[in-house]
């Protein structure tokens, strides 16, 4: 299966990845090859087979007791933040 430049641009936008002019043809080529390769799956007989979302069968989600176990570590956590003001993470204006 072959992808077009427009396909790559759409996927990159959906994934929020800025691609350079030089990168686009490279991904058009390599993703096309990947999807051609992945197309092999078509020949697997999967009628009636349920999808496997988890590698260990039969396990169920464990539930946590409803208790507050956390204290405030804002200053520590925000040391990794690129831009902070008055305890808020700052981003270019969100337009709704």
């Amino acid at each position, binding site marked *: 299966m072959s992808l077009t430049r427009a396909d790559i641009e759409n996927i990159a936008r959906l994934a929020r990845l800025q691609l350079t002019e030089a990168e686009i043809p490279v991904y058009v080529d390599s993703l096309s090859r990947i999807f051609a390769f992945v197309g*092999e799956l078509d020949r697997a007989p999967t009628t009636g087979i349920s999808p496997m979302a988890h*590698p260990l069968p039969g396990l169920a989600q464990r539930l946590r007791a409803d208790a507050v176990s956390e204290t405030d570590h804002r200053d520590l956590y925000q040391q990794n933040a690129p831009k902070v003001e008055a305890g808020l993470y700052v981003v270019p204006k969100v337009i709704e």
Partner: protein
Amino acid sequence: MSAPAATVAALAKGLAAGDFSSVELTRSYLDRIQAAQPGLNAFITVTAEAALAEAAAADAARAAGKAGALTGVPLAHKDIFCTEGVLTTCGSKMLANFVSPYDATVVSGLRRSGTVMLGKLNMDEFAMGSSNETSYFGPVCNPWNVAMVPGGSSGGSAAAVAARLVPAATATDTGGSIRQPAALCGVTGIKPTYGRVSRYGMIAFASSLDQAGLITVSAEDAALLLGPMSGFDPKDSTSVESPVPDYTRTLGDSLEGMTIGIVKEFFDKGLDADCESRIRDAMRVYEKLGATFREVSCPNLPLSVPTYYVVAPAECSSNLARFDGVRFGYRCESPKNLTDLYMRSRGEGFGAEVKRRIMTGTYVLSAGYYDAYYLKAQRVRQLISADFARAFSEVDLLLGPTSPTPAFAIGAKSDDPITMYLNDIYTIGANLAGLPGMSLPCGFVGGLPVGLQLIGPHFSEARMLNAAHRYQLETDWHLQLPAAFA
């Protein structure tokens, strides 16, 4: 004390006997790391000062009679594990300045057992790669031949253990990232059963496939270290509530009566003939040990690579969405608006392979393609898993090659993703099915190590380590050292 030849078992014994202190041991490894770093680039961060402090604390604990079996033993972590107060980069520009405020459960478990952390090991960016060439911090070289790749993604872990810069290292395996570099570097690697080791604090690549494990010199060392890093973790919903056995206790058990399966599909046309003959040699050793062989077939196994390249990118595209330049990590210069902030921070912060996988995953999950790709792949995954289950109803373990060829040259496969992806053709199946797997050194081809793979049923780590250990008692491939690091 000769650090290079020493195993964790020997070092622990020496520490206990007072032959050397943890500080002395740590210093000697730090010296080796410093000397080797320019040539191998195995480390991203060396925490020399903290390591010496931890070693001193270990010595003090020992003096106070509070030492455990591993107190004072040095090791290093793959840089995918969060380490409190220490740079944790995941091999990416995106996290080149990220200092984790917390320890991964694996890290705290090994810390609690008294081990000393020497630093953080190089890796493919976000564990996406089979050659360690995708690291933002540069490729790692194979200690057996520095023109060759060490394998990946845990290339730093494998190279560091092979060159005896550390006696043991943590690593992670999503599609072979422990076993393949272990094979290419001539060391022992174990990927436990999915859910055996907590994923908390291990930066996620593909959540349903990722599993932490070890790269060590010997199976015995793996048995010693696996206990403290395993077990149920209330912080990881996918970790399993089942008791952790003492893996060292059954290491010496007899293999008499063990049935080992030879998966027909593993001996395909892609397998290098010389590598195959090393595997056949290993089978003879097992026969001598009392095991019998039976050929089994996993007909869907050849589809494991395409299956993986749908499932893993899908999960990765979502897992890596949190890297957006807002709360941590790389942020582009002067974003014009919100979209620009996202697009450029991610476009500039991620490397080429990571972007390729994010895009692949975004595509397979997107409207109109989900059923054809993602659901289809998850159905094939079910088939592959069932193939293994059927095999394990007949045999105790499976045996085969870890990798189709020995290490290849740096740059040789970096242009073609498919060729690169096919390196993991023998390892990916275990990840899709959540099975434990190991790679053991089993000889050389052209001066480069070859790896033997064992795969077991869920939670059969003890039996697998036992089989590996018995093999290593009969062979000394795992004790061979690259000349440059002897």
